[in-house]
């Protein structure tokens, strides 16, 4: 664990936020990415109001198995802004709710982030419209994005060709379930050379993942899988007896003039 460097804190920092960060030992960070365009440009973060946006993705060399995501709920006229720090067990993108919240802090107004080669500074007000400005900064250690030796990539390792399509019957899943909703193919979609896309399966699985097919996405066309409309459409309120693959299902959408049908495998457009 890296230790907090007192020098990276401003004297005027809000004690509670500062103390929270210290208590959580979120300290010098080795690598970080600012995620919001307003933050990148050093502007006041005012959009989108009321929405929790990712601000910063950071990780620490000594804690190689997880990363930190800093989120900010942008203030509205009525509600103050709020900062959340989440600890994520992987290095994937920052999605709010995707990890354990290690601290929350409010009220914040007029947050502005500035970045230098040495630190990332957060300035804000704790009183709406007032002059009480405070700030804190994370000192940047800076480390490697990757420091691993890689061999040449073998094209044979890829799945799914350009010609693969559901309509032609030449396709392969990169994520598939069996009748009991257990993974038949564990997620291999990162190996798809031309990407992958989710489909509405005929299987009665309301799991948090959709089955995915490898290859170019031609969803919505006649004979092709219907375009996936989202997980909530797979769930009970949008499905019949927990099944979302049936004629006229809203779980997928098609080109105008076509309608969704279940071909026994996936929801398609005809």
């Amino acid at each position, binding site marked *: 664990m890296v230790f907090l460097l007192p020098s990276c804190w401003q004297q005027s920092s809000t004690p509670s936020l500062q103390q929270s960060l210290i208590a959580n030992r979120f300290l010098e960070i080795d690598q970080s990415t600012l995620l919001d365009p307003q933050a990148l440009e050093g502007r006041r973060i005012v959009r989108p109001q009321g929405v929790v946006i990712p601000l910063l993705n950071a990780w620490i060399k000594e804690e190689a198995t997880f990363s930190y995501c800093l989120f900010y709920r942008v203030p509205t006229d009525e509600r103050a802004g709020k900062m959340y720090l989440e600890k994520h067990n992987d290095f*994937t993108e920052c999605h709010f709710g995707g990890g354990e919240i290690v601290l929350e802090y409010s009220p914040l107004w007029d947050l502005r982030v500035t970045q230098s080669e040495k630190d990332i500074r957060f300035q804000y007000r704790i009183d709406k419209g007032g002059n009480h400005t405070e700030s804190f900064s994370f000192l940047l250690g800076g480390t490697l994005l*990757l420091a691993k030796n890689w061999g040449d990539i073998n094209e044979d390792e890829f799945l799914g060709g350009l010609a693969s399509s559901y309509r032609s019957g030449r396709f392969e899943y990169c994520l598939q379930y069996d009748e009991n909703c257990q993974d038949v193919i564990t997620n291999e979609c*990162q190996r798809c050379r031309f990407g992958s896309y989710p489909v509405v399966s005929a299987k009665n699985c309301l799991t948090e993942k959709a089955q995915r097919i490898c290859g170019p996405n031609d969803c919505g066309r006649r004979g092709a899988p219907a375009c*996936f409309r989202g997980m909530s459409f797979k769930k009970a309120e949008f499905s019949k007896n927990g099944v979302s693959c049936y004629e006229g299902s809203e779980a997928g959408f098609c*080109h*105008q003039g076509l309608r969704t049908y279940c071909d026994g495998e996936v929801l398609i457009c005809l």
Partner: protein
Amino acid sequence: MSIFARIKSVNKIKLIFFVSFLLFALLAMVSLWTKKFAEDDTSLALKALELQRIDQAARKIDSWWREGVSVSRYLQSDHCQEFTLEAERYGERILECNPEVIKCLLSKELPDLLFSWRWVHFTEFLQVETFGKKVTISSAHHTRTLLLPHTCHELTLLAGKYPLAASDGDRQNYWENHQQKIKVDKFQVNWRDFKLWKSFIAADNPLDPRQMRESEQKYSPAYGMTRQEMRDFCQFFGKELLSSHVFDAISLFPRKLEREGRPHFNLSPIPWSHRASDGHLYQAQQWKKQHGADKRFEVDWQMCQRVFSYECLDRYAEKLYQPLSPTWSGAFQVLGGYMEAVENKISPRSNLVPSSFYFKAASSMHQLTKRIYWDGQGHKARNFNWQEYPVNEEDHFKVAFRCMRDISQ
């Protein structure tokens, strides 16, 4: 009498020789060992120094790769000035994920190291399916490899509900992307990346003369492709041509209410406000109503940053390639500038965002959800189904594009 005195004189001489030889051999061995250790020490120190240099280089590459703005500050105070000029012309973001800039800086900063750069497709790194640069840094005794994903210019669409079929004005129909990760190019595909793709797919099929000429503006949007070429480009990089409903999602001002359990979306035609009357497009429409279409509506740079309309061409032609104001999601170049091809999964014939410098600010074409038809084959006026004619008849209407990808979680 000592033992030595009792030894015969001949043997004494032999003994002296023998002892001298032993001493000499011992001295020689000590000398050799000392020299060897000294050499080992020097070699180790050199190797450690090389490692430090490589580590230093790797850190620099990593930071320069991701931080266009920092690089810009660095350039201004140092060498590689040509990139400063490019950054002024196209915006500092062109310095992010830019191998040319880094190569230039490295050649001046760390001339003692060897760098090899290759484009690769890597599939395992942090579950990112993408292309990137594989950089090998070598010194006399060490080699280190970095993988730099070519993802600086992508935005991730936040999980949420977004309008579907927004171009039909349907405020309640929606889709959502929870448990889906959708990444979209922040900018329209530029000539540099288009040329790169061409070099991958066909070394013997270079750009045509017009494309060669235009591609000198390397960070400006690439245009003049057929729709199939655009699809091929995106597919090569594991992506797909941007869908119309995703264009809506990244550009429409996010504000929604619930009505009878379904979201009710604000479909403001402009990305910077939920009120259509907020901003200069509305002023231009009012101006046109009051003064007629012929009296010129004056624009300033702030207006042109938001929507690079026909009026901006005269005053700010040199700034056309500056990245204009981002939408809430971080997407640029959504209104004005070049027309943009999209893939419409619901109404396939509504497949072009017409807002561009072909239309005046007062035109109804400058609306986020507005779509017209482009046959995807040619670029003459007859290849488009204009709902409103452009100000000027052109020989070649410029259509740009961008890509997106839907990644498994």
